């Protein structure tokens, strides 16, 4: 099975996340990593690959130079090859532009499934997978909490369970398909020492927008279909009252709630 995985390099959520002067997410001045939610996509791809002899896993990322770290981490986990689209014109791209470039990059590969995470952990909208499916004309099978591939060859289909509010939905589609996976689906592996060494020899292709035939005017901040008028940091919440329970903590809590007319 030929498997493509989309991974994103994001600012570390534990660190100091901020906006740059042009209201884009500041990616330059902060520590970044492979989005934790994309580790689930990589893991699921590796499991599919291990279950099907002769499979390949190719990771694709769109992002600045530092995004190659995300590709490397996925290769260390066990992916076979990487594609990194990097171009200054991409700065400030919205979900539409990102999905356009991702789709063009994926189209240079051969694939049976495209696997993505459920959301970017930075300014993620959880819509890139749906948009990539749209642009590639692939069936969209998103938010898989579990996944299985049934049959092989032209009759193969993917079956997922998707966690809804009132029911769990079982959803089925023919392949090729685009599948996004949630953090419920598996337990991502850590790179082994062997994996880290092996990753150094794995091929990573770097592509520019020109390589993909994408016009620079179609992407980036200027091409965004919405504009940010302003970003304001929320005032920190006023320091609250903290009491230590001395046998009366529950009563004090309810007193507070009553004072705030919440009970």
């Amino acid at each position: 099975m030929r498997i493509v995985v989309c991974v994103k390099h994001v600012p570390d959520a534990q660190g100091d996340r901020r906006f740059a002067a042009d209201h884009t997410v500041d990616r330059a001045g902060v520590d970044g990593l492979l989005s934790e939610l994309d580790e689930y996509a990589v893991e699921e791809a590796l499991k599919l690959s291990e279950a099907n002899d002769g499979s390949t896993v190719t990771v694709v990322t769109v992002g600045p130079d530092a995004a190659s770290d995300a590709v490397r981490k996925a290769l260390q986990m066990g992916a076979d090859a990487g594609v990194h689209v990097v171009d200054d014109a991409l700065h400030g791209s919205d979900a539409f532009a990102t999905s356009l470039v991702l789709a063009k990059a994926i189209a240079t590969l051969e694939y049976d499934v495209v696997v993505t995470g459920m959301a970017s952990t930075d300014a993620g909208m959880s819509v890139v997978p749906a948009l990539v499916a749209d642009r590639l004309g692939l069936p969209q099978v998103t938010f898989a909490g579990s996944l299985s591939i049934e049959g092989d060859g032209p009759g193969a289909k993917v079956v997922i369970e998707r966690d809804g509010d009132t029911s769990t939905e079982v959803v089925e589609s023919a392949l090729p398909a685009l599948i996004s996976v949630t953090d419920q689906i598996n337990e991502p592996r850590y790179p082994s020492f062997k994996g880290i060494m092996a990753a150094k020899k794995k091929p990573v292709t770097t592509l520019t927008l020109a390589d993909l035939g994408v016009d620079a005017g179609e992407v980036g901040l200027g091409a965004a279909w919405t504009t940010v008028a302003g970003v304001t940091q929320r005032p920190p919440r006023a320091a609250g009252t903290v009491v230590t329970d001395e046998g009366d903590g529950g009563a004090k809590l309810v007193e507070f709630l009553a004072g705030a007319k919440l009970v």
Partner: protein
Amino acid sequence: MAQVLVLVDHVDGAVRKSTSELLTFAARLGEPAAVFVGDGYDNAAGSLAEFGATAVYTVPAEVNDYLVLAKAEALAAVVEAAGGASALAAVLVPSSAEGKEIAARLALKLDSGLITDAIDVRAADGGGVATSQAAFAGGFTVDSTVTRGLPVVTVKPNSVEPQPVAGAPVDATPVSVTLSDLAKAVKVVERKPKAKSGRPDLTEAAIVVSGGRGTNGDFSKVEAFADVLGAAVGASRAAVDSGWYPHSNQVGQTGKQVSPQLYVACGISGAIQHRAGMQTSKTIVAINKDAEAPIFELADFGVVGDLFAVLPQATDEAAKRKA
């Protein structure tokens, strides 16, 4: 005035509160027009009118047999039936996982700008639609405007107080939809209904009481306090991953984002990913036996103590006040 399409969220015609909120926002932009997918409009007509729907488009239930694309195609058909994108003021969709994907694919089809997870929607100065969103776990507010096409906006629940208007139910305009083969390629083959808790819906509830790893698997004290307050029950991912509570009750980045009047965190440390789902709550209360727990940085009121001692007393006290 131009129409504003609102995708109705309902279960067999029982309209969810988020829909009345969307209709209220829609009225700020133009004439609210509801889009009702599936059967049961008769049950919904009253409450849609009550919150201002002046037109209703109905779409055949078949659309629900498929995932996202079918619903995006249905909305696109309604846009056409309503006079085309240039005749409309905006499309508002609930900010659920599926709602955002539907909105994104519709916006792409219409060559239009998209805003997700809006917490405020208003008419922009000089025309168009302006929105506010919360970013980075609620640490920032981002104000945006849509600069291209028909604005498609997904709106978070509990973002506005629904405003009833004295509207009368309207006759629905049925819209036929021809689904593409691609839309039909992704079929919902089964729906396994979930057990109902009898408690309010997590994203709509005015009060949420959540338990974390500190419950050690025993949610009975959390549930008892929730019930005396008429609250929904939430859980941290640690509690969900341990199998103590269903995933649909998870609050946080990869669970539900809630914005109630009151959020009570019990035995939850307050990790950034948990905050992402509850930081915009109006009042936050925490019970944790570790005085250093980061959740106290957010709390309007905190009790350093054992939840198994504090919650039962609080439950009794609250019951006395209610009596």
